[in-house]
């Protein structure tokens, strides 16, 4: 009996997943200060994977295995999660944290595992000739900064030379990401930029909003996360700042951010790189095969929220890249290297999204060896407080590549030089 038990324990210890499973770790955060955002994203990510398993039998006949690991949005824990799960046959990491992404760039590159930091992480990872294993399609922070300025240009008939624009940002590497881009764009368009950092977590912002009240900028752009967003929107309401002149990055554009301010948040705008709401055929399937079947990752109460949609979109891009890799290599089971190649050859078309039950859900884009960031398309969403929903008020539009490309080239080449990387395609 003892021998049997020992053998069973030993077998359990050495056995990984079934060799053919497609393994996608989910570095989630369901606890801590950012749990309210981490939960819907993780639910959307996992539920979409579950849907493919339940409805389609996985991807190309190969079942998907999601390994969830709690990071608490803590960089050290995120790296621990990576180390703990990479040996399980992990095909792709999407850490939902710029801090964790920065730590994983050298590790994942050395291990040959791709990382997809969708709308976060290191912006210059767009240059695939330097960052071979890192992808940040369909849009990055610098694209976002450019989208905000383009929106302001569009609202002012292309002339913003006399405008004052304030950036309220999380005083961290993440929050500082758009500054260089906004400074470069101010040289091009002539607007006056003022910078207002907010210390983490951002519970107290009175000084920043008193300054905004005194200086009366024509527009306020926000780069926040977590409680900083809710407090900023409430403070904007308190000083009666016009909400339709207040534009947040996509990480400042969830229901969590606007609901605490109630109806006063009506008209607030946020950037996005995917569509919003639940009016898509895929949601019928999610309800039928996942939620009603009791297989939802969470409580099943997040469907249709902005961050659930983003998690689902991240999962869809991951699984479509896996499908691309299966077609490329004519195999069902994949290695991380094949997954990387699948990502590098991913092409999202409207026909493909419509077939997946997500018509017009995201922009069309194509990934290439030299461009791991897609076409940088984004759109603007606006909050309707009465209906309690976001809706797109623009089509997808491009970022100002004339300004951004030289910045990306300069930053990625500096990284290549520091790390002795010879740029080029693999």
């Amino acid at each position: 009996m003892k021998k049997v038990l020992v053998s069973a324990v030993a077998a359990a210890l050495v056995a990984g997943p079934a060799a053919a499973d497609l393994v996608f770790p989910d570095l989630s955060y369901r606890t801590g200060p950012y749990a309210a955002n981490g939960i819907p994203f993780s639910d959307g990510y996992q539920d979409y994977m579950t849907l493919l398993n339940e409805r389609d039998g996985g991807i190309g006949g190969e079942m998907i295995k999601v390994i969830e690991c709690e990071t608490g949005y803590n960089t050290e824990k995120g790296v621990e999660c990576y180390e703990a799960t990479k040996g399980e046959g992990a095909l792709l990491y999407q850490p939902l944290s710029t801090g964790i992404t920065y730590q994983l760039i050298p590790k994942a590159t050395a291990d040959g595992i791709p990382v997809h930091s969708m709308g976060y992480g290191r912006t210059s990872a767009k240059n695939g000739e330097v960052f071979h294993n890192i992808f940040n399609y369909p849009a990055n922070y610098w694209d976002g900064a450019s989208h905000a300025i383009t929106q302001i240009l569009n609202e002012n008939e292309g002339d913003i030379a006399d405008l004052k624009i304030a950036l309220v940002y999380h005083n961290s590497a993440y929050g500082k990401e758009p500054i260089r881009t906004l400074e470069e764009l101010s040289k091009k368009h002539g607007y006056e930029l003022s910078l207002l950092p907010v210390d983490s977590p951002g519970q107290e912002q009175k000084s920043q909003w008193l300054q905004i009240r005194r200086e009366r900028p024509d527009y306020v752009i926000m780069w926040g996360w977590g409680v900083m967003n809710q407090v900023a929107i409430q403070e904007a309401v308190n000083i009666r700042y016009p909400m339709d002149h207040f534009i947040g990055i996509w990480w400042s554009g969830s229901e969590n951010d606007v609901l605490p301010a109630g109806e006063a948040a009506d008209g607030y705008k946020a950037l996005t790189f995917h569509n919003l709401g639940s009016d898509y055929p895929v949601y019928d399937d999610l309800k039928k095969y996942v939620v009603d079947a009791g297989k939802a990752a969470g409580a099943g109460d997040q469907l249709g929220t902005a961050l659930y949609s983003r998690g689902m979109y991240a999962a869809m891009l991951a699984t479509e890249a896996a499908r691309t890799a299966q077609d490329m290599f004519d195999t069902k089971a994949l290695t991380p290297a094949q997954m990387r190649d699948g990502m590098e050859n991913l092409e999202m078309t409207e026909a493909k999204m419509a077939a997946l039950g997500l018509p017009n859900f995201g922009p069309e884009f194509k990934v290439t060896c030299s461009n791991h960031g897609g076409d940088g398309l984004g759109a603007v969403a606006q909050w309707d407080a009465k209906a309690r929903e976001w809706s797109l008020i623009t089509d997808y539009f491009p970022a100002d590549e004339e300004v951004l490309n030289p910045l990306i080239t300069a930053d990625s080449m500096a990284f290549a030089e520091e790390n002795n990387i010879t740029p080029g395609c693999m």
Partner: protein
Amino acid sequence: MPDQLLFAMEVLLNGLMAGVLYALVALGFVLIYKASGIFNYAQGVMALFAAMTLVGIMEGQVPFAHLINAAFGTDLHVFGWQLSGLVGIVLTALIMIALAWAVNHLIFRHLVNQEPIILFMATIGLAYFMEGLGDLMWGADIKKLDVGLPQGINGWIDTVTFDAFGYGFFIDNLDIWATVIAAVLVIALMIFSQYSKQGRALRAVADDHQAALSVGISLNFIWVLVWSIAGFVALVAGIMWGTKSGVQFSLSLIALKALPVLMLGGFTSIPGAIVGGLIIGVGEKLFEFAIGPMVGGATENWFAYVLALLFLVFRPQGLFGERLIERV
């Protein structure tokens, strides 16, 4: 009057208001430390827990709904009632009293006569336990809290200052209410401790545990009492901060704002918490206004600690703290 002076006056007033909010958090620390010598690391989490409980009760949320549904396959979420803010506050206060009783009977009663560091470690454990308990009971989503307190710019002050100076001052109605409530709370606490039997017993325990025990004062009762009062103060702080930002995990981090206040005002003085809060609030806001733009801004978090450290150099026990005299 020069614009910069007007702006500085506006910043000063807002600093005073912010200071009151900091003092509200610091008050909870002081009450427990004064009566039991315990530095309650869980005070911030108590504010979060109280605010979550208040929203849950007001909205008729079923506690532990996710757990119950997962275990029994049910689909429970709400009881179907909506309660007023006042009823919610009363019921939450009762829950905070029950929590105080549980904390004392399950943890601190067993740690009497232990070193202060042991008691401090116990409160760290309590903080993490309550974080998890709060999430399990009420969920981790961000909740809107509305107990009827007005928010937004005070129109009267705006108009009066505009007529007088040509520039209308911004003062948040919520901050004004916080100031009034904090003043009432402090006066009530002072009356309670000066004129009630329990209050005098509380002061006796604060002065000398053993002497208080020798004259028949129940240490257990006093500790439950003081944790209950600290729980109520946490509820008030949770309401004020939760109304500003929504009730969410970050509320527990407001304790970080109380630490420099305690360092400055002293750990054992209620007036110290108030005055310390006001000095920190005004100091950090004026520094951010005058010096912040020259050094890139976002100075408030670190400046509060620098200011507190400066005071510590000259008065290690804080402005109003009791001087420690150790006889050899």
